[in-house]
């Protein structure tokens, strides 16, 4: 199965990239933009016996390596 993982900075952690994009969007006239947060997107091809097992493994991967819990949160979507 294919897992889409999103890793992003926690609320409250300074996101200079997001801020820069926000400024550029404002400069282009998209005044309605309120806030931009930038993150990482990963696609993982996974071999797992069940959806539940996959979720468990993915969570472990995120906690261990893919996200840094000090500054980042994550969420993921599994496609079968």
């Amino acid at each position, binding site marked *: 199965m294919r897992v889409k993982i999103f890793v992003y900075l926690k609320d409250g*952690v*300074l996101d*200079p*990239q997001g801020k820069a994009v926000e400024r550029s969007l404002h400069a282009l006239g998209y005044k309605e933009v309120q806030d931009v947060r930038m993150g990482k997107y990963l696609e993982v091809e996974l071999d797992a016996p069940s959806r539940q097992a996959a979720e468990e493994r993915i969570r472990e991967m995120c906690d261990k*390596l*893919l996200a*840094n819990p*000090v*500054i980042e949160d994550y969420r993921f979507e599994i496609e079968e």
Partner: protein
Amino acid sequence: MRWGVIVFPGSCDEQDVYDCLKNNLRQKVDFLWHKDPLAGKFDCIVLPGGFSYGDYLRSGAMARFSPIMKGVVEFAQKGGLVLGICNGFQILCEAGLLPGALTRNASLQFICRRVFVRLEETDTPFTCAGKKGQLLKLPIKHGEGCYYADPTTLERLHKNRQILVRYVDAKGRTTPAADPNGSLDHIAGVCNEGRNVFGLMPHPEDAGEKILGGEDGLKIFSSVIEACDKRGKRAWLD
């Protein structure tokens, strides 16, 4: 005493640390390969700067899983001295040996220049040769050096006096302009609670000779040498 300098894939400053210790301070130094277990007797292990694993996921994120890091964690837990410079600091944070994290510079640009840092504490093996409040002129060169810690952690850092160096201006004042990367509380380097693990963003190894623009960096290394000489009488190693 004996130093070990770890070579990760993508390390860049290992030779600088090696040369600085060997040529300027006449120290015994060995390179340690990241795939090997940590073996042999060392007084201080240095994690040098560079771009381990290309820093592709997050700075330091992959290097912490190198085989040698298991030994480094045990070494630190036993009270061994561990010094992380730049990427080494990032790895130590990722490995949980130091609190906090290093994020993208506020300017979004890589920054290479000399800065002043102020020695905030001198009761550690990494700063004992200096005076409290002393300024050191050191090079920085990093894209992700903006120190971050959550409020609880920051409070603990203050309480335990774990902030060892802060970015300041030439007169020793912490000002926003003197903070090159937007670090929280102008933090340039912190130690652990046990005071035997220290990480900093500036590069003392590139400030070890007058002809290269200054020797303030030697203060950090000679502190370690002094500390190890007096080790019997001091408390940071059982």
